[in-house]
């Protein structure tokens, strides 16, 4: 498909959403702000068909078909009419995007054996936005494969409800709530010998959804609450040795705000809640931790709480003084803010929920996984997603030892859940 460009047409552009302004500033080779969602199929990936599927999918997603530009006061997105090229998977997932790589697109589509990976620079959208793009891409790819094989007609009905809604839902839902900022106190940080430079260790645990749902129902909590409690428990047992510590364990949990504000935006619209434990005794039981996690979720997962967070983000960007500062000065401010808040975070635990595709595609897909880039300041991240009957918990780490992952999965196994482990091989390097 060739796109004819009108020489006189003015390039289309739109602003970044309110949160996205952060990502170009804090990203570098060490912290890429890139996450990856992959689907594994029952068939080997054919690069030619995958490229074709991408060429046909991308024009519909205006929020992905952009490049990042630097203005005098703000960054902005400009429509990108070039072709986005797919490529084979590189050795380290979620690596940094050099600005001029791949015709300036802010995402990558790669493949490995029977897997399609979508790597997205967070400036474009959050997990909820990316999962829709991946869904459309994978379904289109399966359609093309079927068409090649036996001429099954292509489906014209898209699999997603909204392609491109470039609304800044932060601004849209800004009301004059009293702003609530992010915590800046020093949290307990996970330390250890680092893996070789740029190397990330990935450990994937697959569990049956049915087992974990039954377990959570019996405790009267949600799956995210349970996994957050297991995370805090594992850190408390493994790193604090069950002893009191003056630095609290803070698990930061990203929350998709679309359901709270009835938004359908395909740009970023998420916030973070921080759930934690300040260990003052040495006799916490797992049930104590479950209780405090449940209580904190109850307090924070409310529309009012997020309205206050939005007010904090937006009130800055709306201030005239801030708006007229040159971009490079704004960026220094953002970087300082980021460094102040990132130290109050022990680990991030992100659950992007279920990957749902129409019935006819299910038999072609064997699984999904979400990987987040780990950083030197926050060396471990945990990401969760699910497809059909299995839930996938991925740990990405910059650290050589696997104490936390071990404690986490052992706790799941001890609670009667069948865990299947897979890794990217980074932890075997020393053994071979």
């Amino acid at each position, binding site marked *: 498909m060739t796109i004819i460009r009108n020489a006189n047409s*003015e390039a289309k552009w739109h602003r970044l959403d309110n949160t996205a302004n952060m990502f170009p500033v804090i990203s570098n080779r060490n912290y890429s702000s890139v996450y990856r969602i992959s689907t594994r199929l029952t068939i080997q990936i054919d690069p030619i068909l995958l490229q074709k599927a991408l060429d046909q999918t991308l024009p519909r997603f205006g929020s992905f078909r952009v490049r990042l530009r630097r203005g005098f006061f703000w960054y902005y997105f400009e429509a990108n009419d070039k072709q986005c090229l797919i490529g084979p998977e590189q050795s380290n997932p979620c690596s940094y995007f050099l600005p001029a790589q791949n015709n300036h697109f802010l995402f990558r589509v790669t493949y490995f054996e029977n897997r399609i990976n979508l790597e997205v620079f967070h400036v474009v959208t959050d997990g909820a936005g990316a999962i829709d793009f991946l869904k459309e891409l994978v379904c289109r790819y399966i359609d093309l494969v079927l068409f090649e094989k036996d001429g099954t007609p292509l489906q014209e009905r898209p699999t997603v409800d909204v392609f491109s809604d470039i609304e800044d839902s932060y601004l849209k839902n800004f009301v004059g709530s009293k702003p609530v900022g992010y915590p800046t106190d020093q949290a307990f940080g996970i330390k250890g010998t680092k893996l070789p*430079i740029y190397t990330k260790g990935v450990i994937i645990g697959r569990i049956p959804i049915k087992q974990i749902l039954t377990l959570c129902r019996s405790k009267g909590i949600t799956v995210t609450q349970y996994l957050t409690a297991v995370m805090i428990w594992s850190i408390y047992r493994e790193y604090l040795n069950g002893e009191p510590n003056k630095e609290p364990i803070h698990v930061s949990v990203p929350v998709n705000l679309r359901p709270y504000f009835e938004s359908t935006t395909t740009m970023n619209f998420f916030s973070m809640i921080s759930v934690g434990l300040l260990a003052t005794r040495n006799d916490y039981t797992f049930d104590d931790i479950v209780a405090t996690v449940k209580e904190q979720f109850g307090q924070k997962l409310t529309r009012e709480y997020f309205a206050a967070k939005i007010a904090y983000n937006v009130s800055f960007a709306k201030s005239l003084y801030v708006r007229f500062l040159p971009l490079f000065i704004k960026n220094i401010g953002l970087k300082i803010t980021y460094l102040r808040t990132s130290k109050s975070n022990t680990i991030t635990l992100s659950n992007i929920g279920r990957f749902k595709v129409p019935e006819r595609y299910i038999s072609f897909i064997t699984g999904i996984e979400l990987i987040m880039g780990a950083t030197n300041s926050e060396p471990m991240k945990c990401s969760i997603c699910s497809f059909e009957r299995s839930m996938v918990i991925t740990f990405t780490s910059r650290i050589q030892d696997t104490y936390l992952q071990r404690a986490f999965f052992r706790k799941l196994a001890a609670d009667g859940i069948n865990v299947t482990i897979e890794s990217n091989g980074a932890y075997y390097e020393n053994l071979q």
Partner: protein
Amino acid sequence: MRTCSKCNVKVKDPSLVCPLCKGVLSSPVGEETPLAFPPVGIDIKKFHLLKRVFIFLSIIASVGSVAANYLVYDGFLWSILTVSGIIYLWIVIPYTVANHINIVSKILVQAFCGSLFVVLIDFIIGYRGWSVDYVIPSIFSASDIAVIVVILINRMDWRNYLLYQFVIGLLGFAPLVLYLLHIAKNPVFVIISTSVSALCLIGTAVFGDKTVKSEFKRRLHF
């Protein structure tokens, strides 16, 4: 699939040990599944030899000149010049040789940092004002002309240069400001720099077509 009896999990990797606890796995049942990831590699760019050689030479040169200056000290701290030159090199040159950076933005960074650097040199060797009188106006006049050459050669990309061109144009008025503040003394160079910059900005406004103007709107949105 093999199992780890200590962790009580199944392990899918083609490995003899558990990735969680490094314990030996139970004997395999069924066939081996290959690793689901490409081999983990280390990015060797980080260990660039040439860069290390330059770092080594820079340190030797800095330490050497400070030592020589100390040993044969005659009241003049010339080693500050060499050391600041080397620091300038390390800060500004990587930006200029990086190949993904807008060429006009490189001109801007060089002009700006270069101006600061000549003022520093002027101060180190006893301030006589030659940096603000002659060098800075010349740097900005030359930058304006360089930008025009770049635009003429690469007319299609003009809109990408616009923002930096605008900033260089504005900085071209710095000598005028310095003159009005009685810091710069030589009116000839001030007049040259100011008029070249003014001509560039006026020229852009007159010759820039609709794309250039809409680009301006985007780049300066607030």
